[in-house]
């Protein structure tokens, strides 16, 4: 199998279902019985390939993990409760008190909040640099750096960093490069080929197939030698190349308990099958809407990596196979105008999510970034005049019509 959608449809768990079901059923249960006391001991020691307890593994979730693994070409995959759970499990696996991570101020607001407000008080130092400046990144790394973290397209600043350039630095410094690839997915960006070591996805977004369920995926791309990680070195002695997966499955993920629900895994496996078709349409619509908005006098600025005037257009074109994702931002004169415009929407929905089938509009400054003071928002690249559109898969003429009518009221 070579094609992405062929794999998405046919890849998955080992073996044939007991009834020959073509879709792995929802194993909506907690515990799995073993045939003997010895068998349950072996299962707990990891010496028997079986499920014991759904907080740790579950057949429906395993099916999704296997699909993601085959689609990404990675070494190991783990499904968790949400995209944020994917980030927190990853950082807790890689770093400890006294360590630091190098990241950008231009990332998703909740991710920045996790790093600065939740993890920093536990002793994690957060070093903020521009991911577009590899020299800054290199200078920020030291012997206690546990990860360099970035997003494939930052949300909502829509910046695109040169992943190959960054991976050359992180490989030389023996630090894992962690990428949140939610808005591009393995369909548009092959993290492994670009030198990423850990790929993170909020499967709530494109993967779920229409905002049906919350989930997250963590993928070890197979690029990193975990023997070089101070925190994971000991795991290589017992788990070899699976050190990262073993440390999560047998400690961090198991103990944190942010597991995916089997029902969500089922919905997301289903969503994966049509993901490429939906992404193609979403990207096509986003480009058309960005071009439309750029012609409107009421709009003071439009940002979309697919527009040639975007500062990130060239690198985005190289990295993302000439597709630019479903997110765009545009500016109106004031926050009040943004709110007035949002209130006119009839098809486009006012909601905080991205990569739904529905087109969604949001004012990031007053929502996702509301916990940050105004001055900090400016540093984070979040303007009070900015609106974010997450472009869905509707017929584009209806979306243009909705925007056009709204702009006429301003």
């Amino acid at each position: 199998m070579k094609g992405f959608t062929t794999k998405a449809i046919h890849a998955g768990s080992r073996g044939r279902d007991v009834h020959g079901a073509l879709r792995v059923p929802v194993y909506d249960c907690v515990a799995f019985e073993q045939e003997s006391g010895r068998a349950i001991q072996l299962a707990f020691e990891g010496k028997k390939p079986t499920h014991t307890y759904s907080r740790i593994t579950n057949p429906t979730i395993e099916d999704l993990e296997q699909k993601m693994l085959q689609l990404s070409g990675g070494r190991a995959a783990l499904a968790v409760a949400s995209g944020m759970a994917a980030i927190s499990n990853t950082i807790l696996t890689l770093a400890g008190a006294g360590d630091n991570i190098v990241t950008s101020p231009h990332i998703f607001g909740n991710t920045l909040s996790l790093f600065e407000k939740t993890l920093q008080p536990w002793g994690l130092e957060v070093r903020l640099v521009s991911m577009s400046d590899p020299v800054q990144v290199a200078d920020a790394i030291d012997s206690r750096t546990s990860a360099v973290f970035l997003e494939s397209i930052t949300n909502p600043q829509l910046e695109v960093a040169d992943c190959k350039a960054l991976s050359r630095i992180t490989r030389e410094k023996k630090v894992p490069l962690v990428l949140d690839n939610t808005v591009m997915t393995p369909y548009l960006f092959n993290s492994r080929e670009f030198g990423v070591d850990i790929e993170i996805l909020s499967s709530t977004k494109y993967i779920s197939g229409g905002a049906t369920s919350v989930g997250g995926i963590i993928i070890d791309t197979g690029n990193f030698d975990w023997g070089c990680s101070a925190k994971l070195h000991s795991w290589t002695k017992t788990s070899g190349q699976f050190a990262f997966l073993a440390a999560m499955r047998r400690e961090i993920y198991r103990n944190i308990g942010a597991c995916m629900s089997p029902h969500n895994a089922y919905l997301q496996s289903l969503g994966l099958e049509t993901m490429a078709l939906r992404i193609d349409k979403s990207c096509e619509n986003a480009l058309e809407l960005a071009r439309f908005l750029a012609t409107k006098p009421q709009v003071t600025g439009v940002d979309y990596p697919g527009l040639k005037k975007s500062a990130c257009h060239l690198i985005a074109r190289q990295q993302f196979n000439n597709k630019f994702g479903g997110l765009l931002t545009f500016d109106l004169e004031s926050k009040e105008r943004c709110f007035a415009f949002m209130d006119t929407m009839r098809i486009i929905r006012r909601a905080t999510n991205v990569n739904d089938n529905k087109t969604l509009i949001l004012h990031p400054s007053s929502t996702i970034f509301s916990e940050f003071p105004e001055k900090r928002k400016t540093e984070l690249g979040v303007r009070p005049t900015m609106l974010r559109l997450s472009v869905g898969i509707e017929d584009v003429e209806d979306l243009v019509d909705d925007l056009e009518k709204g702009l006429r009221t301003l």
Partner: protein
Amino acid sequence: MQIRINGEDEQVAKSGVSIAELLILKKVESPDMVSVQLNGEIIDRSQYHELRVHEGDELDFLYFMGGGAFS
């Protein structure tokens, strides 16, 4: 030859088999998702075809259910 796998005595008809052959002989489900310890040492996957198993060796086949693969 007699060896121990995951704490159990096991007979293998052929002696001097490689780890890769042993995974097949023992019908290990999804061998690409298994890490192997030989006499307490984790074995690098690149050595599975070269490294031979001998009488009295102790092996552990370790699983990380759901989402491990050969790369």
